[in-house]
C-alpha cells in the first residue's frame, strides 16, 4: 500500500465519530456487551492545547494531523492502540500476554484501586502492548507503551512483557521496534520495579548478541528508569520531534540549581545535539523510515510466511 493511501485511510478512520479521537479498543474485555458503567466517563476534550507552543487547536484538527501540533510540530502523546493503527500493516498485529496483570507486591496503599480505575478508564490492562506485526509485509516484534496508563511507569508487567518481547525476537530471528514512553520506574512496586530496568536491559543485550536489530523510538515522554535502561539501548534510536527525553525530572533539576531551564532542555532536539539520538523522524514518516532501516538490515517481507 502506498504511503499516501495509508494515511488517507487513517484519516478516514479517525473521522468517525465526528472527528473525535477513536476510543481505544478494550484490550482484554471478555464481555464487551457490559457497556453501561456506573462511573462517569470524562468527555473527550474538544480542543488541544500544545504544551510546547500553547497554541489551541480543535481536537478534530489535531487528531486528523496524527496528534501533531499544527503550529509547532510537537508530536503529542498517543494511545498504544492508536499508534499501532497508524504504524503497523492493518490486521497484522497479534498480541502477546494480553491478560497479564500486576499484583501488589509491596502492599502499596491504594495501588490495587488505582490500577482498577485505570483499567476501567483506559481499556488497557497495563502500560504496554506487545506482539508481532508487519510493516510493508516485513514481520517484526513490536512494543508500544501508553502514557495514559499511570504515565507508562515500568512495574512487573511492563518489565516482563518487554523482556518477553526481546526474547521472542531473539528466538524467532526478528527485529524489534519499541515505542517508548514513560515517567520511569513504578514506585508502587518498590524495589521490584527497579529490577525491571536490569531485566529488560539484560534481555536487550541478549538480542544484540544474537545479531538482531533493535530500534528504539522515543516518544513523549521517555524519562527516568526507562530512559536509563532499554530505551537507550537501541542499535538505532529514533525520536519524534519536540518530545521530552531525559533522566531526571525538570523540576528536580530546577530545584537543585535554583534557576529555570531553557525550553528546549531535554527535548528530542537537545538529545540529538548532545549525541543521544540518531534520527528525529516525524510521525507521518515513521513507517517509511523504519521500513527503510529494516530493509537495510536485510529484513524482508514474507520471512516467516
Amino acid at each position, binding site marked *: 500500500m502506498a504511503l499516501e493511501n495509508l494515511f488517507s485511510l487513517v484519516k478516514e478512520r479517525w473521522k468517525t465519530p465526528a472527528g473525535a479521537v477513536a476510543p481505544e479498543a478494550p484490550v482484554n474485555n471478555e464481555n464487551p456487551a457490559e457497556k453501561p458503567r456506573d462511573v462517569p466517563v470524562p468527555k473527550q476534550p474538544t480542543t488541544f492545547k500544545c504544551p510546547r507552543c500553547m497554541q489551541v487547536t480543535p481536537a478534530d484538527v489535531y487528531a486528523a494531523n496524527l496528534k501533531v501540533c499544527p503550529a509547532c510540530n510537537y508530536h503529542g502523546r498517543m494511545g498504544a492502540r492508536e499508534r499501532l493503527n497508524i504504524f503497523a500493516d492493518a490486521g497484522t498485529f497479534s498480541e502477546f500476554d494480553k491478560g497479564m496483570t500486576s499484583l501488589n507486591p509491596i502492599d502499596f496503599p491504594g495501588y490495587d484501586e488505582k490500577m482498577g480505575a485505570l483499567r476501567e478508564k483506559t481499556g488497557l490492562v497495563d502500560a504496554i502492548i506487545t506482539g508481532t506485526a508487519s510493516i510493508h509485509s516485513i514481520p517484526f516484534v513490536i512494543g508500544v507503551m501508553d502514557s495514559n496508563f499511570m504515565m507508562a511507569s515500568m512495574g512487573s508487567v511492563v518489565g516482563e512483557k518487554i523482556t518477553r518481547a526481546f526474547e521472542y525476537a531473539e528466538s524467532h530471528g526478528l527485529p524489534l521496534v519499541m515505542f517508548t514512553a514513560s515517567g520511569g520506574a513504578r*514506585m508502587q512496586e518498590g524495589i521490584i520495579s527497579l529490577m525491571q530496568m536490569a531485566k529488560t536491559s539484560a534481555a536487550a543485550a541478549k538480542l544484540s548478541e544474537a545479531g538482531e536489530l533493535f530500534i528504539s523510538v522515543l516518544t513523549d515522554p521517555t524519562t527516568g528508569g526507562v530512559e*536509563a535502561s532499554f530505551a537507550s539501548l537501541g542499535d538505532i534510536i529514533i525520536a519524534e520531534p519536540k518530545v521530552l527525553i531525559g533522566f531526571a525530572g525538570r523540576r528536580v533539576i530546577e530545584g537543585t540549581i535554583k534557576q529555570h531551564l531553557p525550553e528546549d532542555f531535554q527535548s528530542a532536539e537537545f538529545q540529538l545535539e548532545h549525541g543521544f539520538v540518531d534520527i528525529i523522524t516525524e510521525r507521518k514518516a515513521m513507517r517509511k523510515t523504519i521500513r527503510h532501516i529494516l530493509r537495510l538490515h536485510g529484513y524482508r517481507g514474507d520471512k516467516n510466511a
Partner: protein
Amino acid sequence: MPEKNSAWECLELIRNKNRPTAIDYIPLIFGEFIELHGDRHFGDDKAIRGGIASFEGVPVTVICQVKGRNLSENKNTNFAMPHPEGYRKAMRLASQAEKFHRPVICFVDTPGAFCGVDAEKRGQGEAIAQSLYLFSKLKTPVVSVILGEGGSGGALALAVCDRLAMLENAVYSVISPRGAASILWKDAAREKDAAEVLKITAADCKSFGIIENIIAEPAGGAQNSPEETSENITAFLSETLRELAKLPADELLRARYNKFRKIGVYSE
C-alpha cells in the same frame, strides 16, 4: 538476635556522618589497592572510585561509590551522586577486569545518580543503561555489596551482579523516601512514613528475592566497629568468590540472567 531496625532507623544510621565508607573498608579488606582514574572520555568522577587490589592473594577490581564524612569531602565527592563519567569509568574498569579475568567487587552507597544539567547533557540515562547492559554480560564474576544507601538507578548500575549483599542497616530503594513522600502526599516531610511503605530494608529485599545475603553489623551499627564490619564483609566475599570461581563463564552468565529474569510479580 536483636530486633531488626525499622526503615527509618536504618536511614538514620546510614546517614550518620561516622558511618564507614568504602574508603574506610578497602584497607581493611584488601591489600595493595591501586586506584585508577578517569573514564577516558570526559573526566574523573569523584563519586565513583575504583582500581585494582588483591583479595586473599587474588587480584580483583574494586569499584565503589564514596560518600564524604564532612562538607568538604562531600563537595569533592558530590555526596556520592555520580555523573555519567562515573558510570563510564566503572564500565571501563569492569571491561578491564573481564580482559584480565579478575572478579569485580562493587560497593554501592549513593542517594542516586546526580540530577543536573551537565549530567543530562552527558547522558546520565544512557550511561546507566549501558552499565546495566555491560554488567549483564560481563564474563567475569561480579559481586556487589550495598554499604549504606542504595538509591535507585544510580545504585542499580553497580548492582547487576552474580551475588548481591546488603549490610544489615543498608537500604535499597526505587525512589528516595523523600521523593516518594512528595509524590504521594505532596509533603516531603513525611519521608519517615514513605520509608516504611516502600519496604527498603535488607530484610525486605531478601524476602523479595532481590538480594542473596545480609551482612551483619556490630551492635548499634557499622560505625561502632568498622573492623568487625569489614571482617564480616571479607567473610562474605571470600565464600562467594570461591563459589563463583567454580562456574564456567557461560554458566555464570546464564545464572546472572536468570537471577534478574525471574524478578516480577504478576498474574496471567
